[in-house]
């Protein structure tokens, strides 16, 4: 893999309203989400609250509910929604001919 983007697989490998992960050696996983409308987002797989795995939460609208304490995290900004305060780092994503590409620099940062 070279370039600024990492090809992680087909969009169709992520269930609609579901999540897959990318394992990053030596760092946090990256959670890759697909919404009901087919948009794909990626966040560090770590809730800002108690570090729950966001990849295991329920995806609804443009947010995911953390499985540990039901914080709602925006998929596009990583910010906690509602009254909760906190932010999870986002990883830029683009789709190219059905392939999901995630930003290499942000992924490296996750591994650091």
């Amino acid at each position: 893999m070279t370039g600024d983007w990492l090809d992680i697989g087909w969009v169709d490998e992520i269930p609609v309203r579901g999540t897959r992960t990318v394992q990053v050696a030596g760092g946090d996983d990256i959670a890759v989400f697909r919404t009901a409308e087919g948009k794909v987002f990626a966040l560090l797989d770590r809730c800002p609250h108690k570090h729950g795995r966001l990849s295991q939460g329920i995806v609804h609208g443009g947010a995911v509910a953390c499985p540990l304490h039901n914080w709602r995290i925006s998929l596009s900004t990583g910010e906690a929604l509602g009254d909760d305060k906190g932010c999870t780092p986002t990883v830029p994503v683009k789709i190219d001919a059905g392939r999901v590409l995630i930003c290499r620099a942000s992924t490296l940062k996750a591994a650091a």
Partner: protein
Amino acid sequence: MEYRPLKPETDTRAHLVVIGNGMAGCRAVEELLARDADRYRVTIFGAEPRVNYNRIMLSPVLAGEKSFDDIVINDADWYAANGIALVAGDPVAAIDRAAKTVTTRSGTTKTYDRLLIATGSDPFIIPVPGKDLPGVIAFRDMDDVDTMLAAADAGGDAVVIGGGLLGLEAAHGLSLRGMKVTVIHLMPTLMERQLDEAAGWLLKQALEARGQTILTGADTAEIVGNGKVEGVKLKDGTLIPASLVVMAVGIRPSVALARDAGLAVGRGIQVDDHMVTSDPHVLAVGECVEHDGQVYGLVAPLWDMCRSLADGLVETPTGYRGSVTSTKLKVSGIDVFSAGDFSGGDGCEDIVLRDASRGVYKRVIVKDDRIVGAVLYGDTADGGWYFDLLKKQEDVSDLRDLLIFGQAFASGGGAADPKAAVAALSDDAEICGCNGVTKGQVVSCIAKGAHSLDAVRGTCKASASCGSCTGLVENLLALTLGDEVQAGPKTMCKCTSFGHDDVRREIVAQDMKSIPEVMQKLHWTTPDGCSSCRPALNYYLLCALPGDYVDDQQSRFVNERLHANIQKDGTYSVVPRMWGGLTNPTELRAIADVVEKYDAPMVKVTGGQRLDIFGIKKEDLPAVWADLNAAGMVSGHAYGKALRTVKTCVGSEWCRFGTQDSTGLGVKIERMSWGSWMPHKFKIAVSGCPRNCAEATIKDFGIVCVDSGYELHVGGNGGIHVRVTDLLCKVATEQEAMDYCAAFIQLYREEARYLERTAPWIERVGVEQIKARIVDDAAGREALRARFLYAQSFSQDDPWAQRAEGAEREHHAPMARFTPQEEMA
């Protein structure tokens, strides 16, 4: 076929060669001619042996509404009149950029000064076995339509693969032509790129009502046939007979020529704002290009591109800036519209209007006081207005409250305050269409003491059915009572104005079958619910439709999706079932082996007499389950809103005080009730004597054996609020104890609210009510028991075994792995 201009070879003007005689290529030439008819000598090469026609209108031709002549854009006279040479039916096979020539398949070579590539798209053919069989076609050109018409004349079954716009149009046409049509769509909802889930679901309902069979979430495994197509086989083994298979799964920019010629190609042929490729002498336009990272498959951007291209060709460049697209179409007579970005997300607000009785769904997405997207179904009259507001990025804050009602209402000078609008209504204006309740009736009912939404629903029935007039009734309450309005019962969540009991009642009364259907019929205010309502709806449907309802995994909490308990470090704990708390050397050995093999840091005996293996990694779960399955153990459901454990004491077989075989009864009850989904977790215990060593009186259902039979206790809880059970009754035989247990579980499953344990449920409805249903009403009890056993016939399928065999593997394996060190090496 070739149309020659009058004096081609003596013409000294610059030669513009166009590859592609479709909508983009000809439109570009038209735009050029309109600006400067004399500047270029034009030659157009087309792959099809036809003049330029409107590809979008192939659907009406298929449907029999139009003929080919009706959809011709430019006939032979146009080419002649404008001195354009058309080479149709002999496609360009190669471009030589150094020599500035193109060569056709038959070997004709032409030189160019400027070359325009407008090759459009190729249909994407999914690479399954049998894709090349005769009778398998795409839906792209007139030849495909001719093939379909011939097949329709012979009658029979057709399968359309792909539930997007093109596929549905093909299906509609074939259906009108008398074929029995099945649409196979990989995604869960139709047209997911243009429509959100709710609108896609409505479309599916409507098409099914028109006689088409729509299979969503269906993955094609192969196309079968001997010498010609005979059917389509899905990955789940279903075989659908077909004499015609239309593949309409998508299109890909047709870039092969450009790529072979060494032009810069990404997803499409890369062009700048003037549609110039990486070679300044070569331009490209239409579906084959990639502009600013975007490729387009709709017609509107193509017009924009052709204008910019022509401006550039006559040296008055304007520059193409990309297009915002909208889709407005009629599928099988149903109007749908979408525009912009309807994926929601941060700072986006959804304004949703659902009118179930008219089959209308409207959703406008607003961000920073501007419309960013819209999805309309059933009533698209305001599509153009929303699209206009979207493109102009107009501030809609003043229209916000009335926006969803459409242009006529929002900008027609009507009262901007919805409360004032309601106040202005006459007394005989109808508020609730479902129940025919007027404003006067609602106000008089409020005046007579109905001071809450629920009270109004309970008395005059306004807003008690579909709920779409809830806002009006709330406004009337506020107008009539001011601050004295009483808050109603808690709604299920902020997505709906209905409480749990109302939703459940309506699911059964209206025979609803899916989550999107519930959301549509009950006017959900969010497009796909939230993490509170989705799991609840999933449970209610599962309970109402045993064996019929397809569980929605994405509406399950993680533990129920992964069939293990998530721990705070992201690992899982695994509890195999030990019937009645009994185990044996084989099971213990298997558990010990799992602990060692998968490096589990802790094993603990639980309060429910099971062994809990901690620290299992998500990706190891299927292998762990396979190992436990091999020793005969199944899921213990320690993670679910489900039957957890049946705890027992040793009973009369060993204990000097034991009065009955409590262990044996516990095992039988666990065998009967395991695997059942419930509103919340459910624990059972059987104690062999009143000393009650199994702590049966703090369980959801507890049995205390006595000399003369079995005492049945219900509604206990050992949690934060300890609650001792209520005595339900005493029965004489083991069989009766089991029958009452089954009936009680089913009553709880059918009538408690999601996430309500038996203790608060019984406190809410009263134990007398439970006794009346289970003890006094023998027929009712038997019916409950029968319904429970029927539901159980579908649920006692070990989820671990299914997943150990590979089901839902994607839940466990990462999509990709990334090692920075390797990367850098």
